[in-house]
C-alpha cells in the first residue's frame, strides 16, 4: 500500500435536508482505496452505504448533499468540482453499476446503443464507430452472439444478461474505479456467482479498483481484500476481509458474522437457531447519543450511551469504533 491512493475519503458527511432541518445521514466516513484494490462496504439497508457511493460519483440529489469532508481522486479534491468537470470523471474514470438491472436500463433504447453512448460521450467516437465498439464490449462480458444482441431491448434479456450489459457499460471506458451497489442482489444465486466472477476477472485484467457495496458480508468478504462495516451512518470497523471473519472486533460486526448461515453447521452443531441482532436500525432523524449501536449492544455501558467512540487502530491492521472492542 504505497503511493497515493486512487480514492481517499476523509471525514465525509452527507446531509439530509427534510425542509425544516438538516440531519447527517452519514458522518465521519473515511476510507481509501488503492489502484486495482477491492474494497467492500457492508451494512444493513439505510446505514448510508449507497449514499456514500453516490457521493463519490457526484450523484447525490436533493434532499441529500455533501455536508463536509473531502473526496480525493488521484490526490485531487473532487467534491466541489464544477458539474462539467465532474461529468468528465463520471462514467469515464469512476463508473457505477446498480442493483436492479431491469430498471437501470432504458426500456425503449437498444442495449447496444446504451453501451455505445459511453464511447460517444467520453472517447469522442462517431455513432458508427461507437456501435462497433459496443459489440466488442458486449463480447467482453461474454454475451453470446453480441452482434445480434446489441439490437435487443432490455426486456428481451434475462436479469443476468442485463447485468452483464450494465457491466459492459460501466467498464466501456476503462474506468479506474468501479462502484458496484448490490450488483447481484436482484439475481438468482447461480447467476450471482457468474456475475461476481465476471466482474472480478474483468477488473483484475484491467487494473480497475472495485468498491463493492452490499448487505451480504459473506459475498463482500469473498470478493474484497478489505471490508468496512457501516452502521447508522458511521463506519464502525474496517479490516482485512479474512480478519473480519476470524476475529470481528465490533459487537455489530460480530452480530453480522454470527447471523450468517453456514453450510453444514447443522451436522456440526446440531439444531441451533441462526443468531440475529436484536432490535432495528435507528431512523436517520433519531440516531441515539454516544455509540449508535448502544441500544442493540449486549456490552453497552454508560460511556457507550454518552460518548461516540473514536476510531482505534488495531495492531493487526484496520480500525474499530468501540469503547470495549476486543
Amino acid at each position: 500500500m504505497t503511493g497515493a491512493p486512487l480514492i481517499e475519503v476523509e471525514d465525509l458527511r452527507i446531509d439530509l435536508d427534510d425542509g425544516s432541518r438538516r440531519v447527517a445521514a452519514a458522518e465521519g466516513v473515511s476510507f481509501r482505496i488503492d489502484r486495482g484494490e477491492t474494497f467492500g462496504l457492508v451494512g444493513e439497508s439505510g446505514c448510508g452505504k449507497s449514499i456514500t457511493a453516490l457521493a463519490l460519483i457526484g450523484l447525490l440529489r436533493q434532499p441529500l448533499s455533501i455536508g463536509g469532508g473531502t473526496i480525493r481522486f488521484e490526490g485531487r479534491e473532487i467534491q466541489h468540482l464544477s458539474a462539467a468537470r465532474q461529468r468528465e470523471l463520471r462514467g469515464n474514470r469512476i463508473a457505477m453499476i446498480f442493483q436492479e438491472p431491469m430498471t437501470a436500463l432504458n426500456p425503449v433504447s437498444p442495449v447496444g446503443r446504451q453501451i455505445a453512448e459511453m464511447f460517444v460521450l467520453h472517447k469522442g467516437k462517431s455513432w458508427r464507430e461507437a456501435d462497433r465498439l459496443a459489440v466488442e464490449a458486449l463480447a467482453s462480458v461474454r454475451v453470446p452472439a453480441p452482434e445480434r444482441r446489441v439490437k435487443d431491448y432490455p426486456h428481451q434479456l434475462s436479469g443476468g444478461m442485463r447485468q452483464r450489459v450494465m457491466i459492459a457499460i460501466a467498464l466501456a471506458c476503462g474506468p479506474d474505479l468501479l462502484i458496484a451497489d448490490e450488483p447481484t442482489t436482484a439475481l438468482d444465486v447461480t447467476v450471482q456467482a457468474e456475475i461476481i466472477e465476471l466482474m472480478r476477472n474483468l477488473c483484475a485484467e484491467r487494473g480497475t479498483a472495485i468498491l463493492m457495496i452490499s448487505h451480504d458480508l459473506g459475498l463482500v468478504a469473498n470478493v474484497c481484500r478489505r471490508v468496512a462495516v457501516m452502521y447508522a451512518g458511521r463506519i464502525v470497523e474496517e479490516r482485512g476481509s479474512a480478519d473480519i471473519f476470524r476475529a470481528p472486533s465490533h459487537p455489530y460486526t460480530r452480530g453480522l458474522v454470527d447471523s450468517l448461515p453456514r453450510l453444514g453447521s447443522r451436522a456440526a452443531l446440531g439444531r441451533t437457531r441462526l443468531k440475529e441482532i436484536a432490535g432495528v436500525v435507528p431512523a436517520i432523524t433519531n440516531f441515539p447519543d454516544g455509540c449508535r449501536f448502544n441500544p442493540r449492544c449486549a456490552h453497552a455501558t454508560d460511556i457507550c450511551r454518552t460518548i461516540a467512540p473514536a476510531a482505534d487502530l488495531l495492531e493487526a491492521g484496520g480500525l474499530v469504533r468501540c469503547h470495549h472492542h476486543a
Partner: protein
Amino acid sequence: MLSFLFRRLLQTIPTVLAVVALVFVLFSVVPGSIVSSMSDDADPQVELRLKKQLGLDEPVYVRFGSYVAKLATGDFGTSFRTREPVTFMIAKRAWPTLQLIFAAMAFSVVIGVPLGFIAALKPGGIVDTLAMVVAVSGLSIAKFWLGLVLMYLFALKLGWLPSFGYGDGGLKYLILPAVTLGVSPMALFARTTRAAVLEIMTADFVRTARSKGMSETRVVKWHVMRNALVIILTTVGLQFGALMGQAVVVEKLYSWPGIGSLLVDSVLQRDIPAVQGSILVVVLSFLAINLLIDVLYGVIDPRIRYA
C-alpha cells in the same frame, strides 16, 4: 402486424353497430319529427303524406333493418331536409372539420408538450409556475366564452382576423377557431408532459444515464423524451376523440361549415339520416385514430409488439 390490424378492424364492427342502433333508438323515442320541426300547425293530411314519403310510417324495426341494409352498401341515406344524399353532405363538410381538428391539435401539441418539458426541468421555478397557471386556466375556461373573447379582441378590436366563417378556406379564417378548440388540449398536454417527465426523471435508468457522465440536456434528449412520448401519445389519442365532440361547439360559434355544425342543425330539425351519418363519421374517425395510436405505440415502445 397485419393480422393485428385485421383483428382490430373486425373489432370495430360491433362498436359501429351499437352506435348505429343507439342513435336510431334515441331518435325514435325523442318527441318531434322533421315534420313538426318545419311547422307548428301543419295540416294532418300533409303530415301523414310526408311521413309516408320519408318512410316514417313504418315500424321502428323495419326502418332500422332497411337503414342497416343500406348502410352495409355504403349508403348513408337521404337527408330529410335537403333531399341530398347524406354521404355527399358529409363529404362536403369533412374537410373543414378535419382542418379545424388537425390545426387545433397541432397548436396544442406544439405549445403544450414543450411547455410541459420546460416546466418539468425546473419544477417549482418561474417557468413551471407560469406554465401551470396557463394549464389550469386553459382547462377551466369554457370554449364558447374563450371564443367570444378572442373574437372581440382579435376581430373586433384589433381587426387582425376575421370574426367568423370559413371564407375562402384560408389560414386566417382557421386561426381563431383552432386556437379556441386547442386551448384545453394544450393545457392538458402541458400537464401530462410535465407529470410524465417528472416521473421519468426519478427512474433508475435516468440515474444510470447520469452515472455515465452525460449532461442533463443529453439525459433528457437521449433517455427521457422517448419514454415520455409513450405517455403523451396516449393523451393525444384520447384528445382527438374529445376534440371531435368539442368541435361541435366551436363550429357553431364560428359558423364553421363542418360536421359539427351539420350535426347540431340536423338534430334541431330531426333530420335523422344526417344525424346518424354525422355521428357515424365521428365514431369511425375516433376508431381510426385509436387504431393509429395503437400502431404508433409499437413503433415507440419496443415492449409493445403486436402478434
